[in-house]
């Protein structure tokens, strides 16, 4: 039963990600990407990583994609703007990407992965994840807050109107 759920979810994820790159409307690509994030969150829930599933929705689908939508609306993109390359480029890209994927799959699936017999399956719950984050990984967390501060300052600086010097 659960492997049927896994296969349906995986098929939907791959189809939805393909529609992101195939669709000609930028707006529809954004919506397909939001759907992809929802499906990946469903995978996280299957693996009992509950906190990550919801954080994925809140951060990616709820904030980052809204930013993308904003930019698309400001730039007023219609579907006629982009020039599409021909079929040859698509074929070349699929061959290149496909060989990369085959290489990765072959290399990683031939290795014998160690068996985990007494793993702690509750590592995805909020309490355990939070304890690990604040005890062992405290420094990276504090530094990532500095990273956000720098990113905010950078974005505000980039968005300022430049002074126009009239000669």
């Amino acid at each position, binding site marked *: 039963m659960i492997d049927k759920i896994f296969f349906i979810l995986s098929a939907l994820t791959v189809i939805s990600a393909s529609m992101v790159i195939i669709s000609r409307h930028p707006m529809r690509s954004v919506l397909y990407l*939001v759907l992809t994030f929802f499906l990946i969150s469903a995978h996280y829930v299957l693996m009992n990583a509950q906190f990550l599933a919801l954080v994925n929705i809140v951060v990616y689908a*709820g904030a980052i994609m*809204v930013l993308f*939508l904003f930019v698309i609306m400001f730039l007023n993109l219609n579907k006629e703007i982009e020039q599409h390359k021909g079929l040859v480029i698509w074929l070349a890209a699929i061959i290149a990407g496909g060989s990369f994927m085959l290489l990765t799959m072959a290399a990683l699936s031939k290795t014998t992965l160690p068996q985990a017999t007494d793993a702690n399956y509750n590592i995805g719950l909020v309490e355990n994840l939070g304890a690990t984050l604040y005890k062992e990984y405290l420094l990276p967390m504090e530094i990532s807050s500095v990273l956000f501060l720098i990113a905010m300052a950078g974005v505000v600086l980039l968005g300022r109107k430049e002074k126009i010097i009239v000669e």
Partner: protein
Amino acid sequence: MSAVMIKLIFIVVVFGVSLFVAMYSTYAERKIAAFLQDRLGPNRAGPFGILQPFADGIKLFFKEEFIPLKADRWLFLMGPGFFMITALMTSAVIPFGADFIHDGKTIALQATDINVGLLYIFGVVSLGVYGILIGGWASNNKFSLLGAIRAASQNISYELAMGMSIVALVMMTSTLSLREIVDQQAGWHWNVFYQPLGFLIFIICAFAETNRAPFDLPECETELVGGYHTEFSSMKLGFYLFAEYINMFISSAVLATLFFGGYQFPWVSSMDPGLTKTILSVVVMFGKIFFFIFLFMWVRWTLPRFRYDQLMNLGWKILIPLAVVNIVLTGAVILYKMM
């Protein structure tokens, strides 16, 4: 009856109750507005105008459906749908009453109790902006686009302060599950007495998230024709307006659950679990929800609307520092209590 059947019936009942309460909220809004403005309100359709929501619904059904010429057809049709979906999804985790224990079987009056219930509510609220953005964009109309962009920027600005006020609450309760938060508020230990500043910030952000006055800039008629729902007619417009009332109902339920004890009331919580306790707790919960809906409407018909820069000022420069101060104070008090 198997547990799955009971759960399905409960979900359908919650769905029906949300729609019914939203429907009569439209009637209550007009009656309360009339009361505050010293006039009568609707009193033609049925005795005291009770059948007014049905009249409104039938009128909306019979209006003409049209799609503007250059509008993106699929997105135009899906916009109201998204809004309605995110409005209804939150009701899955709210506990509406005490558990009904009947010879061994427990029927929980909560569709699902996930460990991260509070984060789920926050996630669904942050998704609520999509319905407005897509509807405003797909209308191919400058006023709709302006209304949609204002709504989206307002939504994401107030979402931050809301999240931070929830953080202070979670520091106190040390659980994200809504059922446990309600269970901790038995007797007189309502969270509003322990977190008054957090409650204030949360209720202001709830006003902003549901686009209710004084934060209703996205859809004000005096500035933007209809804002993001200008081009919508008939049932698509009905979905937008209806989903706004469902949002208000759900925000009131979340407020009551987080800060006002949910279905707990001092005398009811100490009763033995049984049918009377369940029914009384449901009545208590809905009493609190209706009080908050009345508060939403009271504020709407009293305060004038915010200007856009005043709104952004309030969200970023006043509420976020207040929320941070709240977190620091809560942390200090918890540390002091631990020592």
